[in-house]
């Protein structure tokens, strides 16, 4: 039945995109928290933070984009959870379709929904004074990193989506992910942090991803950060995919 994989995935993707289009509030909700953080940090704390950059919005945006994704994927888990709970997942699995297309449709939907939220957040940042001299290639590189990061977190979200017993359980996993940016270079330079915190901040994935995107936005040469960032994204993606697939196989056998 693998011959139908692409066709079935396309049909199911169409279905989930309809869901998104009919619940645009989920996209808005996804974007609201990161936008609120951005307003808070720029207009309330920003004056007191010495980021070493002329525009704090521009300094902040990369971390805000990662928070947007971390908040967006909880809806991925939620949508998958609803399918599991409503019995429609079982209906699909009992039909003559490429079974894994059910999962892939959710993953691709997550990607589309998060990209829309990211665009909304970038537009708000532009209104708040974010400017970038990045060229087309640099923007493509930023998009590439964000897509990889979304896919990595999406595959993590698939696991609670498949196994959660309640709505809260399906989305609670994203809270720690939301906090990682706070202990990174997203809001303040890591050099200001005390020793152990600094060590953690400098060696966790968010810092390298934030630094790479920041360098791309400001048109500076990207150093080793981009390779560390890519390694983290791909590493998380592979591990999460492996565990998500194992969970999925246990569910359908």
């Amino acid at each position: 039945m693998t011959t139908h994989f692409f066709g079935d995935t396309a049909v199911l993707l169409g279905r989930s995109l309809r869901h998104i289009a009919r619940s645009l509030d989920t996209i808005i909700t996804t974007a609201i928290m990161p936008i609120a953080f951005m307003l808070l940090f720029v207009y309330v704390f920003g004056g007191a933070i010495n980021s070493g950059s002329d525009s704090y919005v521009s300094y902040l945006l990369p971390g805000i984009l990662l928070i947007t994704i971390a908040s967006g994927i909880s809806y991925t888990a939620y949508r998958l959870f609803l399918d599991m709970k409503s019995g429609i997942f079982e209906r699909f699995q009992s039909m003559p379709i490429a079974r894994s297309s059910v999962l892939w449709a959710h993953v691709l939907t997550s990607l589309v929904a998060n990209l829309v939220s990211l665009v909304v957040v970038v537009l708000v940042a532009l209104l708040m004074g974010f400017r970038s001299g990045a060229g087309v290639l640099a923007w493509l590189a930023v998009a590439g990193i964000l897509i990889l990061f979304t896919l990595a977190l999406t595959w993590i979200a698939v696991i609670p989506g498949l196994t959660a017993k309640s709505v809260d359980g399906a989305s609670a996993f994203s809270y720690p992910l939301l906090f990682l940016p706070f202990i990174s270079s997203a809001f303040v330079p890591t050099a200001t942090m005390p020793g152990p915190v600094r060590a953690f901040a400098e060696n966790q994935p968010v810092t390298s991803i934030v630094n790479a995107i920041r360098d791309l936005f400001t048109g500076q040469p990207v150093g080793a950060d981009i390779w560390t960032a890519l390694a983290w994204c791909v590493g998380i993606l592979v591990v999460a995919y492996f565990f998500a697939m194992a969970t999925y196989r246990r569910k359908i056998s």
Partner: protein
Amino acid sequence: MSTDAAIQVRGLQKSYKKLEVLRGVDFEVAPGSIFALLGSNGAGKTTVVKILSTLLKADAGEASVNGFDVVAQPAEVRQSISLTGQFAAVDEMLSGRENLVLVAKLRHLKGAGAIADGLLDRFALTDAAARKVSTYSGGMRRRLDIAMSLIGNPPLIFLDEPTTGLDPEARLEVWDAVRELAARGTTVLLTTQYLDEAEQLADRIAILHEGRIIVNGTLAELKRMLPPAEVEYIEKQPTLEDVFLAIVGHE
């Protein structure tokens, strides 16, 4: 065992951790018949249906559906069945028509729109076709659910407790739908906790109790199993409920 049975189940066993749910279930369903699997809540009816529809693997035993082994040929099994689960598996965010079109496309059929319109008409859902399913009543939802299962005319349909939670009127509508299905030659395996439902619809009834099929026969055969003395005392014919309670033991 005959080889042309629509469903053959032999020695089926399934446990969830320590809980032994099926302890050797055997039965056969003739093509084109309505077979009722009767059992109280928690008897294991859904477990049997899930194994037969390739959603769950049995620990032991064999099962074939339309001549295909559920373990060795799951894709062929899925091609030849439809499952209407215990809870209406419809997409709440889509309209009734969109639900039907979705299933028709997933079954790789041509003319999905025309198929959807035909079924909407047949199940008296045309007026509600464009409405979101979240606004449907329980009966409408169940009718849509069954309509979705008919797409592609699979020769065998599983209906897991199709009327549980429905009001009496909606229940009669579902019964009519099941009778119509059988009239068209579709084999139906129906599970139910309601004795009158089995009595009304089924050609054969099997009672699943404590992990085994303890009785399997036509309604007439089951009625004959009652002690004759009891028949003399009561004026009306014994209901299936009397048979069930007599066999299962009543405390």
